[in-house]
């Protein structure tokens, strides 16, 4: 059996993202072996239900990230509202209340850049709909280390700004409609 190329998936979305993330996660195979880390921009006052909403169609256990939690394959970790989520060596999760990045916390750049530092070429970064530039630098960090970049086709995204700015700054290995992203992840990772 070939050694697995990828070790983790990071996904980010902003406006329109709840629906988009549900569609991507809903297509993930129940045997998906990698951890999936998710940033969805929300109001800082958002309650605790974000993870269960995002995971409602997902066959993998989906949870709100806890500080220092070990990162395990086959699980979905969602950044809590008002906290940055980072990956530390281990790999383990870390949270931070440091300044907003691109006006948001949690920020996709923070997650993606830390994931690139820990997993190097083993990261798949996915940028979905949003009206923000967050995630572009993060995806650039991933692709500069030979990780894989997947961007939702801006033409079909509810808000095109986030996928478009990621495409302009970082470029992509795949630009796809939402419904094809989950199956590509299955093909690459399962």
């Amino acid at each position: 059996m070939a050694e697995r190329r990828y070790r983790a998936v990071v996904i980010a979305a902003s406006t329109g993202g709840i629906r988009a993330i549900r569609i991507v996660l809903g297509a993930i195979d129940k045997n998906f072996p990698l951890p999936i880390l998710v940033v969805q921009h929300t109001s800082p006052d958002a309650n605790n239900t974000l993870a269960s909403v995002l995971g409602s169609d997902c066959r993998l256990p989906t949870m709100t990230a806890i500080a220092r939690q070990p990162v395990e394959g086959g699980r979905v970790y969602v950044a809590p509202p008002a906290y940055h989520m980072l990956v530390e060596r281990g790999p383990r999760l870390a949270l931070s209340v440091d300044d907003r990045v691109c006006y948001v916390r949690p920020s996709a750049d923070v997650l993606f850049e830390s994931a690139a530092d820990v997993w190097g070429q083993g990261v798949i970064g996915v940028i979905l709909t949003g009206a923000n530039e967050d995630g572009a630098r993060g995806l650039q960090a991933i692709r500069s280390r030979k990780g894989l970049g997947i961007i939702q086709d801006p033409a079909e995204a509810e808000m095109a700004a986030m996928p478009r700015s990621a495409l302009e700054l970082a470029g992509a290995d795949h630009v796809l409609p939402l419904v094809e992203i989950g199956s590509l992840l299955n093909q690459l990772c399962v």
Partner: protein
Amino acid sequence: MHASELVDIEVALFQEAIKRRYGYDFSGYAEASFKRRVIALRESFGFRTVSHLTERLIYDPLLIREIIGKLSVPVSEMFRDPIVFRHIREEVIPMLATWPSINIWIAGCAQGEEVYSLSIILRESGLYDRAHIFATDFSDDALARAEEGIYPQREAKKFSKNYLLSGGIGSLSDWVTTGYQRIRVDASLRRNVTFANHNLVSDGVFGEMQLIMCRNVLIYFSDDLQDRALGLFRDSLVHGGFLCLGSRENLEYSAVSAEFSALEGSRGIFRRGSRG
């Protein structure tokens, strides 16, 4: 080598320099966040590389206070996570009232937002006169600002909303005055507050506490340093004393977890030694 790995080398050298030159040990900090903070520090000074920052750090001792200020815990809000302060009002305050005198330690007080939030709760519940708050931080810059108790006016609306959500029985304007684009907390709120420098990395226990608040500080620490800080908290707390961490922090991955129990229905509030 990837550019980001070059920065890792620079951050390690910066860390070594600040320890050897000024005695501040950041080796127990979680790496990813610390790296981001050092990069943000470099940007704030306009240096092209972290190595330039390190050079200035070594040769310009006047900068260390500002550097420590910028590397320490960021600004908070008054009554941040109002639900937590509601739990403090409703669950913790009635228990604190059973002690004849009440010592409270706010570890990592940053710019004092939580010090004054707690002072207001103590005043509104009639416990302030027998309470004493020790507000500590390892940044002298932060302590000076905390002692001033002045915040930008643009925060007033959020603070006020948080205050009400926390179960406030009056109005935040009872406790702050507004003017010159700033809000200033009433001086009476720091009557029973001692601001002091204390570093969780290197300093020890200094008193017996009924309540310790240390919110969103341990998330920046690696395991060993977290366990050191939690050990200090355990040794400082009286039996049945309360430990209030950030609402996303818990003791699950710590060495002291067996010595605390979570306060039921709360997020991040624990009691020393009590079971059930």
